[in-house]
């Protein structure tokens, strides 16, 4: 019988993030599938009552909590201490957590402390008899494995964008507060702020329907023998603004800045899509001036509808990987698209 624990931190406003609510849906579904299982919730942060009330109707047996100013910041030492105390207090055998940056940093060490094991990038989960099976990717989204394991507690970090956001009844919860044995000192690390990437404009929008990916062709010499980087910047920013799209870049594009070539001023490594970049989840993706190397393609694994603009009809990126390839000059076509979007 699995003792399931849904574990997460709260946000600065005391609530839960979108991925945390998606992951709650997966935990509730799993507990319904697994006969005889129990579900508890565990929250930690500077304040937890708002979050506990918001998810009070999810059917969990109990809510455990750790709260206080020392747990407000995203810091390994205090986060790991809080999570460890919650897992031990719940005597959990199966711990489900959202793959936020904070939990991805914290939970592997916590799993080790409590003698458990951890799997990350989990994209599917379900009951198999009295046990649990998960699905996760290997080799950077190139192979999908279905697996189970015997060790407990078993921690899983669930990727975003896979489950519906939990939107059940709110209520009034009374979390059982758990004491935490903080290390001394616990605050050798001090969070001093949050910064945007070098871009002045907001170019990364995880919730956007559309991903616009710019390849290195934007900064190469065009038909007139000249580069037109400023024009490219205006066109791309204009498109992102009009379509409210998120911006991705190919590896060759984002590495140009480090190599001293002409660059798009707003393009950073955070925009990089592919093998050593991100694998974003969007309903649609439009690739411009990209090429077809395998490392780039894996970054498009979770883009459902794909279109591409390229001057080469035999472009390896588009052929068999995109639904539609427009053979055109990206400068001219993007300018026209922007005009229509604004109109």
């Amino acid at each position, binding site marked *: 019988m699995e003792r399931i624990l849904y574990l997460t931190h709260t946000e600065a406003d005391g609530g839960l*993030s979108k991925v945390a609510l998606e992951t709650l849906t997966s935990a509730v579904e799993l507990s319904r599938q697994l006969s005889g299982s129990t579900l508890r919730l565990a929250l930690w942060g500077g304040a937890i009552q708002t979050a506990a009330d918001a998810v009070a109707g999810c059917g969990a047996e109990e809510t455990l909590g750790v709260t206080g100013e020392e747990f407000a910041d995203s*810091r*390994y030492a205090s986060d790991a201490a809080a999570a460890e105390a919650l897992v031990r207090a719940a005597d959990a055998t199966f711990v489900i957590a959202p793959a*936020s*940056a904070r939990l991805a*940093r914290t939970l*592997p*060490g916590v799993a*080790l402390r409590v003698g458990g*094991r*951890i*799997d*990350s990038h989990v994209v599917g989960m379900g009951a198999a008899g009295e046990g649990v099976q998960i699905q996760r990717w*290997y*080799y*950077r*989204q*190139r*192979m*999908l494995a*279905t697996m*189970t*394991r*015997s*060790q407990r507690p078993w921690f899983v970090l669930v990727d975003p964008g896979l489950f519906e956001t939990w939107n059940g009844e709110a209520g009034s919860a009374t979390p059982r507060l758990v004491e935490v044995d903080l290390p001394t000192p616990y605050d*050798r*690390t*001090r*969070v*001093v702020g*949050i*910064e*945007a*990437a070098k871009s002045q404009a907001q*170019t990364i929008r*995880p919730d956007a329907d559309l991903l616009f990916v710019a390849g290195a062709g934007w900064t190469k010499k065009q038909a007139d023998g000249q580069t037109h980087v400023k024009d490219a910047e205006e066109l791309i920013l204009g498109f992102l603004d009009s379509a409210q799209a998120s911006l991705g870049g190919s590896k060759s594009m984002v*590495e140009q800045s*480090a190599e001293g070539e002409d660059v798009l001023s707003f393009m*950073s*490594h955070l925009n*990089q899509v592919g*093998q050593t970049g991100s694998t974003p989840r969007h309903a*649609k993706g439009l690739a411009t001036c990209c090429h077809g*190397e*395998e*490392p780039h393609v894996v970054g498009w*694994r979770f883009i459902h*509808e*794909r*279109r591409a603009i390229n001057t080469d*009809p035999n472009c390896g990126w*588009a052929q068999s*990987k*995109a*639904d*539609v*390839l*427009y053979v055109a000059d990206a400068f001219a*076509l993007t300018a026209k698209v922007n005009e*229509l979007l604004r109109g």
Partner: protein
Amino acid sequence: MSQGFHLVVCGSIVPDPLQTLEPIQGAEGPALKNEMMLPAVLDPWAGHALYEAAHLAAATPDSKVWLVSLGPRAKLQQLMMTIAPKAAFELVALDGPAGGFTEAWETAEALAECIKTIPGLDRSRLLLFGGCASASRDAGVTMQMVGERLEISDQFLAVDELTPQENGTIRILERIEAGRYQVSECAGPPLVAAWATGRLPEPPNNAQLGMQNMRSIMPALQKAQPARVGAEGVEFLEVEVPKQRRNTRVVEDASVDEMAREIVEWIRK
């Protein structure tokens, strides 16, 4: 700063990203077809960690870099030929599997035990570097478990910048959600930094440095201790490469206006 850093970088081999990978069922679980024959490269994010470590060591007197690599000895030797000319380091090799289907917990145990035995390593000055995830297992959990085993309670994941300050603290930028950075200040070593891409390009080859490194690399490979790393307790029920071939419609005879209208309709749909 009166003392430099002792930088230990964990990093190993992965198949060249340009290779097509195919899973097979091996004697001890899933593996890659022709795994030993596939061209290998230094794991990309671990490579960034190594270049950042070498850069930091060069800028901080009395610092030293060790590269701790767990992989098949013959493949490690091939890899060293390519990275020895790029950064100054001392290799500490472990002879064992480096495939993606091995267990992070077991890998972390092998790496941590190995690091504990490095002669001359001062763990109070330790900056433990590695990639934020491998291109094989792609779990993003190993460095944290190595850090735990070395009792390091200041850990940072997806680091793009690490800057020692004049007062001895270290300023660190970690990637967080929505393309932002969390900025932290740590009191000093020891700490764990699992790197994303960092800020540095891949260094150019330096033949003299390569020859200098190889003098210590070959003995380190010969002394490589065997590491038993598997996936105990894990049962793989299926490993597959999802089909992703699409029937691409090529539009090349339409005008720019027609293409633009079609794209806008698709965006608004």
